[in-house]
């Protein structure tokens, strides 16, 4: 088993209350399904869309956002999967994909050589 990080990028935040509830329910079902199959190492956390960017030798501090709205990382989950292919397959169930968002699947670098 290897570890992967799912970074959730973008995703529309609009919608009527009923739609929002529906999408949230889909997320909860998806994560629950992954958990039941032993794929979740760490549920991870949602991230605020604001913050600071500290940059360069000058240590310039600027306000977020850090990217275009469609690229902002909104949260992450630590996943366990056989290989990258399986991790990618697992990510395809993510409801963010139906809402103009993306999942970035990144292997965690292994410590052993």
């Amino acid at each position, binding site marked *: 088993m290897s570890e992967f990080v799912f970074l959730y990028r973008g995703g529309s*935040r*609009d*919608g*009527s*209350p*009923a*739609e*929002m*509830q529906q*999408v*949230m*329910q889909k*997320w*909860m079902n998806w*994560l629950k399904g992954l958990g039941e199959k032993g794929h979740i190492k760490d*549920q*991870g*956390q*949602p991230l605020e869309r604001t913050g600071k960017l500290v940059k360069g030798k000058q240590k310039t501090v600027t306000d977020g956002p850090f990217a275009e709205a469609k690229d902002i990382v*909104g*949260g992450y*989950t630590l996943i366990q999967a056989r290989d990258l292919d399986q991790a990618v397959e697992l990510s395809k169930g993510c409801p963010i994909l139906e809402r103009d968002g993306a999942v970035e699947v990144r292997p965690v670098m292994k410590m052993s050589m």
Partner: protein
Amino acid sequence: MELSEHLFRHEAGHMVATLTRLFGTHNLALAEDVVQDAFCRAFEVWKVRGVPENPSAWLMATAKNRAIDALRRERTARTFEPELSRLIQSEWTLAPGVEELFAANAIKDDLLRMMFSCCHPRLGEEAQIALMLNILCGFGVDEVAGAFVRTHSAIEKRISRAKRVLASSKKLFDVSAGAEFCSRLPAVQRALYLLFNEGYHGASPESAVRVDLCREAMRLTAILLEHPFGVTPATYALAALMHLDAARLSTRTDSSGNLSSLFDQDRSLWDSKLIAEGQRLLDLSATGPDLTEYHLEAAIAWVHATAGRIEDTNWGQIVALYDTLMTIRPSPVVALNRAIAIGQHEGPERGLQEILGIANHSRLAKYPFYFAALGEFESRSGKYEQAQEQFERALGLARNPMERSFLRKRIQTCEGVAASAPGRAIASK
């Protein structure tokens, strides 16, 4: 923890109402932004950590904190009520002040305040209902458009115009002032009645949408009944009417989604709990000197709901109730229903005579069930050709696939004259 089906929708109504009381009706858009933000946070946090113990309280607390942020950000850019303006001038008073305005006792009547605000006398009835659905029931523009079978842009225009009217009153309606309350109460009752009817008789082909509209009307009427000025005989009668009709809601379409008339419905499936509650409410409505249209319509619904079989229906009593209704609130649709009841009571020839004698029947020229009722009585008098013509006119006016397939079946029956199918009527009630 499982979420209740309409949690977000209902909490949206509550939060927008409370925030609008704080910000003033001219800042409704800000209130809506804050609520959207609260939902985004719930969305992000709950999907990972699960639903909190008390989701409603979680949302309201989040809305409060977002409101404090918004006030801090907007205090110089916008104008607020003098009382709130004073509170937000200093950090000493801002958070504690808002905290107080969100206390359980303070937010108790907010839905009712918003309900009365939506029934502004400068708004037409359709606009009032659209506004209630949008603000109080948390329906998005597309969902309101779906309920009324109108285009997105038509409903968007109607709602934004209505919101401008709402903004002009600056403050939410004051439900503690008896005289104003009583003078606006009939408009509120009427809007709730129409909202229910949109669900019960409306054009939307989706029965789920229609059940939602009926439930929303019942939920808002229950809120009205909780207020000391709102709990009048007419409100009881309105609630009774809704319960008695809603008891039959699930049988209005059969298992394959086809419209089923009162004559074909499986009465064993009528909801006996709703009928009992409707009867209790009807008893409570029977006080005081006022006999309203809601009393009469509830009584008519009660006669139907308590008839074990269609043959047991006391049509004479129903005709008498319609006679009185015609003196209180005459309309071509009421006249049509009265004529149908007469036809049931005294035979199809009399029914036809009454339908053709309706004053202003030109106002029914686009109502499919006017022609359907004519067709029904024609076919019962054995005049199948004429009946078929009427059903075809009705078909041309039908508003959704359910109505169309219902009418096509009637046409087929007429075509197969040989088949001596027993006459059946479309009942509007």
